[in-house]
């Protein structure tokens, strides 16, 4: 009997291990594959040249720049709103009904399919506000999409600042906002930074929200203003993988590599910041 149940356990654990391998091994393979096939495509010309011959030659420079513009715009919009929203949740409305409702809204905002953000951006920014398909419309759409990430991580960072610091500051007759501004925020900055960078990474990789709000199919020049259309890396990868026949495999893998490297680099930076400051923490 005892022996039997140990054998059952062994079999069960083997299957659990198998399930884990089924997830982790493909992840490793995908990354290795993209590095192996993409890295040889990377050279200075690929990174700095515009696409040529209907995207079958040349580089991806405008797409890189477009993505940088979009991500920057998204963060300029989302960081202030997200940070203040996080301050509201962590410092002002603990345990209230409204707090609960806001959290539910954030969960839903995080769950809205990315293509629906695209529709929303099209209806509100492109058409209603008449921004047209432009960097501005795309940035705002991406900004709203990454808002939940920024709010959630910033709130965690703010809440991890010990309550006693707040009490000390308030007990000196310092106002609530001064306490937040001078005690809570400075000590939450690493966490907020982490959240911001994670948001950046997410915005850089998304395709569906920019499909109808900004992305240009083939625009071998740099955008001149925020009201211009732009190419973007993820959309470019989509286009050369599905819409343009006979694109050299090297260019596809090269583009995938640059996009993946960009996103993973940002996530790596976020992890390093978190790790470094956790070690340095004084309380």
């Amino acid at each position: 009997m005892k022996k039997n149940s140990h054998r059952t356990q062994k079999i069960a654990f083997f299957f659990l291990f198998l399930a884990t391998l089924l997830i982790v091994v493909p992840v490793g393979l995908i990354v290795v594959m993209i590095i192996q096939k993409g890295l040889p495509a990377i050279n200075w010309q690929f990174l700095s040249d515009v696409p040529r011959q209907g995207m079958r030659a040349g580089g991806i420079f405008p797409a890189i720049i477009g993505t940088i513009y979009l991500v920057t715009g998204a963060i300029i919009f989302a960081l202030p709103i997200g940070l203040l929203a996080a301050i509201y949740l962590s410092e002002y409305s603990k345990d209230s009904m409204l707090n609960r409702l806001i959290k539910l809204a954030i969960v839903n905002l995080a769950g809205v399919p990315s293509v629906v953000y695209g529709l929303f951006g099209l209806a509100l920014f492109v058409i209603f506000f008449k921004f047209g398909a432009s960097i501005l419309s795309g940035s705002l759409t991406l900004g709203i999409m990454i808002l939940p990430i920024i709010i959630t991580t910033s709130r965690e960072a703010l809440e991890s600042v010990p309550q006693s610091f707040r009490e000390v500051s308030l007990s000196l007759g310092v106002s609530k906002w001064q306490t937040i501004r001078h005690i809570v925020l400075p000590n939450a900055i690493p966490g907020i930074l982490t959240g911001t960078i994670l948001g950046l990474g997410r915005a850089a990789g998304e395709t569906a929200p920019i499909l109808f709000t900004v992305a240009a199919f083939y625009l071998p020049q740099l955008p001149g203003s925020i009201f211009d259309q732009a190419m973007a890396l993820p959309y470019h990868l989509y286009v050369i993988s599905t819409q343009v026949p006979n694109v050299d495999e090297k260019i596809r893998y090269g583009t995938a590599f640059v996009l993946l490297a960009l996103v993973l680099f940002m996530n790596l930076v976020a992890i390093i910041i978190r790790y470094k400051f956790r070690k340095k923490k004084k309380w």
Partner: protein
Amino acid sequence: MRKFKEFIIEKLILICGIASIFFVVLIFLFLLKEGLAVFNIVSPFQFLFGKSWYPISEPPQLGILPLILGSLLVTLGAAIISIPIGVGCAIYIAEVALLKIKEILKAGIALLADIPSVVLGFIGMVTLVPLVKNIFNLPTGLTALSGSIMLAFMAMPTIVSIAEDALYSVPKNYKEGAFALGATHWQTIYRVILPAASSGILAAIMLGIGRVIGETMAVMMITGNAAVMPQSILVPVRTLTATIAAEMGEAVVGGEHYFALFAIGIVLFIISFAINVTADLFLHKRQ
């Protein structure tokens, strides 16, 4: 003066605090604004259950049943694959793996969550699609099955991390109690820990499925995009999300096609809203 400044700042904080609610409502309102017009052309019943989606024929036929079934088929396939594997992996990480390996596994799964969906779509096109084609000897590998496998893979980070969280937060004394009664580790997991974490695991599954239904780029790149009633899992299908992504570029603003695509957006919004609210209830029940 300082008091006045702080008064303004605190009002600003309140406004940003409720911005999330504002945006959710705004998204829904704008979907309604652009999408409801489709019901001047077709009835809601015809729209949801009509079997033909020919939006650019004359007159347009705007039945989204093939798209709903496409989404359902792909999602169902993904759920069947991802639930046992995802929950199994979560159990392995939470209960069986050694601490060091645990960190590596978690990092690997977090890595998966970070890979942009268009990159996964691209990789699926060059690896999974030919594989499915060859194994089943099909004219094309761009099928519902390929989509299901890819989406199951993409749902993993959500399922594993939330389920692992739920398993981890089962009080330690439950486990010690079971051990004290002479149960093996597996018996403890199976009879004590899994039931105790069930509502959290359910939430994990629901949110994973939510992710699957909402996924756009990868699914558009590998399911073949045929907006017809699917007959099997080995034929091309077209999901709700892919339809919007693929066709909005060609739709004329203010035209019937345009309205219909927004109406699909309404359907997607309602589905994701329902899933997220329910999952949130499950997660709260746990606490």
